[in-house]
């Protein structure tokens, strides 16, 4: 079986930075990612897109080229289009275009990033409804811009995508924002954080200006959202300041924050804790990113939402930590190199309380009404989850067994937090006590033929006999 000192899952800022740091210290690094090019979600296709559409996408995007450039290192092997579907300790299985592969390494870094937080509301499964991140990926990766988008939700990414579409010559039709002016006022009481984040605030103000000058309409404090249409989305319904609105819409882009993608850390059995401000579970890791299992590390948004810069910093920090564990760096050298990174990370993180409060998730989507579909794959409504709970399903895994929510192809990525949220509300308990779906392989799709190819007939499973 092939070997590496360090296998990194995910070639976003965290994974790329960790690879560079670890390789620089002398480790052999295998970097796996299912995308055709490195960059992750945030720097998707950056090498090509920066050249072609750098103006539209902005400097925060094009700076990702530094990270992809650093992958050009003799000790880094980047395998593109490699889907990791199983992690057993530090033994990783993935499918590349040429078939299924296994690799053993001393350390594994999970840098699988974030997912957009599901935003269940009536009509959110209709064709024509996408996430704002999806529209941005289309722009970065394929140079395809959504025309006349209606953006719905809250958060800095909503503005960023709106501005990028505008610069691409496709001004959005409107922004329907779920945060309220009160949220912003409340957030400003975190003035220390706000002050540290003046850079963000300034940039935010500039984006809003750009949208205003282009005549893009903003509805702030929207509630009672519903997406209407029969075969595809046709309109966005909402109330705002006491008025009812119905905006015609061809394409609706949803966004209200991102949450860590915990599929791999869950499957490994790492402990997770509920992070109330982020409204999500995060794996329990030490400050270097090491989990409670030997050789298992996490960095980037998958370890807790911090954004691209924090991801890059935490990737570097983990890279140093791993290099030290491997004996490639002395403790003193590791600490010397990590000190500025750790303090830069602390500064970057200090803005989060402000952002989290200024742009809270849309409350009605955290515990959706009965008729709303929460599990997109198996088409299970919030009401069905509630009924299962009334029948005695105290936890998400029992609710899953009774309703099929979370059994579909996305394996609960989009309904997991909804199910936990609904059960928590019904029982008046903390989501942390309610828990989450158990994750199992395959983490990514893999055909039975590919799995079967890993079977070694000369080394069969020891079995105790056929018992059904």
């Amino acid at each position, binding site marked *: 079986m092939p070997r590496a000192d360090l296998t990194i899952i995910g070639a976003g800022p965290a994974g790329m930075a960790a690879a560079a740091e670890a390789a620089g210290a002398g480790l052999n690094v295998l970097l796996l990612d299912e995308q055709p090019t490195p960059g992750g979600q945030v720097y998707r296709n950056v090498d090509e897109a920066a050249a072609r559409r750098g103006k539209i996408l902005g400097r925060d995007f094009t700076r990702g080229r530094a990270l992809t450039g650093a992958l050009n290192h003799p000790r880094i092997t980047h395998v593109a289009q490699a889907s990791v*579907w*199983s992690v*057993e300790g530090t*033994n990783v*299985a993935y499918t590349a275009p040429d078939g299924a592969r*296994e690799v053993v390494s001393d350390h594994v870094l999970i840098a699988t990033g974030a997912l957009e937080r599901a935003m269940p509301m009536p009509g959110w499964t209709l064709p024509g409804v996408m996430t704002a991140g999806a529209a941005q990926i289309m722009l970065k990766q394929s140079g395809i811009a959504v025309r006349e988008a209606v953006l719905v939700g809250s958060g800095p990414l909503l503005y960023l995508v709106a501005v990028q579409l505008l610069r691409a010559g496709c001004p959005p039709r409107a922004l329907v924002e779920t945060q309220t002016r009160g949220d912003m006022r409340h957030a400003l009481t975190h003035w220390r954080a706000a002050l540290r984040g003046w850079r963000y605030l300034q940039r935010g103000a500039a984006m809003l200006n750009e949208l205003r000058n282009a005549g893009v309409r903003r509805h702030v404090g929207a509630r009672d959202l519903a997406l209407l249409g029969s075969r595809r989305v046709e309109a966005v319904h909402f109330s705002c300041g006491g008025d009812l609105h119905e905006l015609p819409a061809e394409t609706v882009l949803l966004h209200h924050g991102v949450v860590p993608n915990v599929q791999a850390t869950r499957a490994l*059995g790492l402990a997770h804790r509920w992070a109330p401000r982020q409204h999500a579970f995060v794996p329990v890791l030490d400050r270097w990113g090491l989990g409670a299992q030997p050789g298992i590390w996490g960095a980037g948004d998958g370890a807790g939402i911090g954004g691209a810069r924090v991801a890059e910093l935490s990737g570097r920090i983990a890279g140093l930590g791993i290099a030290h564990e491997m004996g490639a760096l002395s403790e003193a050298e590791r600490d010397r190199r990590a000190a500025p990174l750790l303090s830069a990370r602390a500064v970057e993180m200090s803005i989060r309380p402000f952002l989290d409060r200024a742009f809270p998730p849309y409350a009605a989507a955290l515990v959706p009404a009965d008729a709303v579909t929460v599990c997109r794959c198996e088409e299970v409504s919030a009401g069905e989850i509630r009924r*299962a709970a009334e*029948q*005695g*399903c*105290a*936890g*998400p*895994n*029992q609710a899953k*067994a*009774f309703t099929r929510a979370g*059994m*579909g*192809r996305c*394996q609960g990525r989009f309904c997991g937090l909804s199910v936990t949220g609904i059960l928590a509300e019904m029982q008046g308990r903390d989501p942390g006590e309610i*828990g989450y779906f*158990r994750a*199992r*392989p*395959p983490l990514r*799709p*893999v*055909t*039975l*033929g590919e*799995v*079967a*190819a*890993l*079977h*070694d*007939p000369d080394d*069969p*499973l*020891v*079995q*105790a*006999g*056929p*018992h*059904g």
Partner: protein
Amino acid sequence: MDADFAIVGGGIVGLSVAWGLLRAGQSVVVVDGADDALRASRGNFGLIWVQGKGLNAPHYARWSRRSAALWGDFAQELEDNTGLDLALRQEGGLDLHFSDGSLADCATRYAALRAELGGDYPFEVLTGAALMREEPGIGPKVAGAVLHPEDGHANPLMLLRALSEDVRRLGGRLETGRMVSQLLPPGEGFALGCADGTVFHAGRVVLAAGLGAAALGPQLGFAAPVTPERGQVLITEKLPPLIRRPSLIARQVGEGAVQIGATNERAGLDDRSTRKGMAQLAAEAVAAYPALAQAQLVRSWGALRVMSPDGLPIYQESEAVPGAFLITCHSGITLAAAHARLMPNWILGRDGAPDLEVFGEARFAV
């Protein structure tokens, strides 16, 4: 007193017995564990399987067949009561063999069992064109199959759900999220102490706690020698019709997903799925049904079977503490109908009770 009967364990076995006791006019409280408890009832393969049962124990073969024969009626009653679809298909099951030798061996053993049962044991050996006609998706590596007409499959999660709904409808109490940690023998009935401090009182107690019985049993004078055996299972995406009859290798459910399983591993309490297990299951399934090579694997899991030393059920009333019953088995889906329809008379000592003494713990004494 909370109820005539307290049942420890709300899995398939506990709920089947609870349902039967309720229908027999008893009041029942079922106490079941936490969300992450070990639950064979949530991880099993969903077969109603007579084939292979009791090859060296005709009484077990008979008991399994009795349950299989009751299943259709039992499912119908639950479906009528709850409106849920248990997806029961009982049109026979296949035991696939990859070599002529193992097929012949198997047929010989079934013939012997048939003789022991006085000729009443239906099975049929299928090879060549006959097998292809019955099961067109099968591949050339399969040498032949034994068809047992009483076998079938159902949706085990719907069974679990229907039972828990119907137990409530019948007036049973279901207390979930509570781990029973102490079973105090009767003063005025039994007291069940839970980890969260709750106590339930009942006239009699049924220990149907699956693997949990090993720890709780001795408090009531049972040996309860049950140990875990891991079964890993794979699920594919929903596929067009490919597999007609279920086998121990694979079954296709009504919505099209193919369920592949299960391994038989001694892995202690580790219920994870492993790549080695997954690869073995996938290889076997692809050998049996080559078209599966193209199918996407969607989910996998591992679950722990509740195994007694000889693989047969344990049905025992405590000698030390009368009024306490131990009921545990590996094939809880297959035996659900018998547990629901026949077992209550045995527990209640009523006429027409099946003879279950053969399944007592005495057989393990050395």
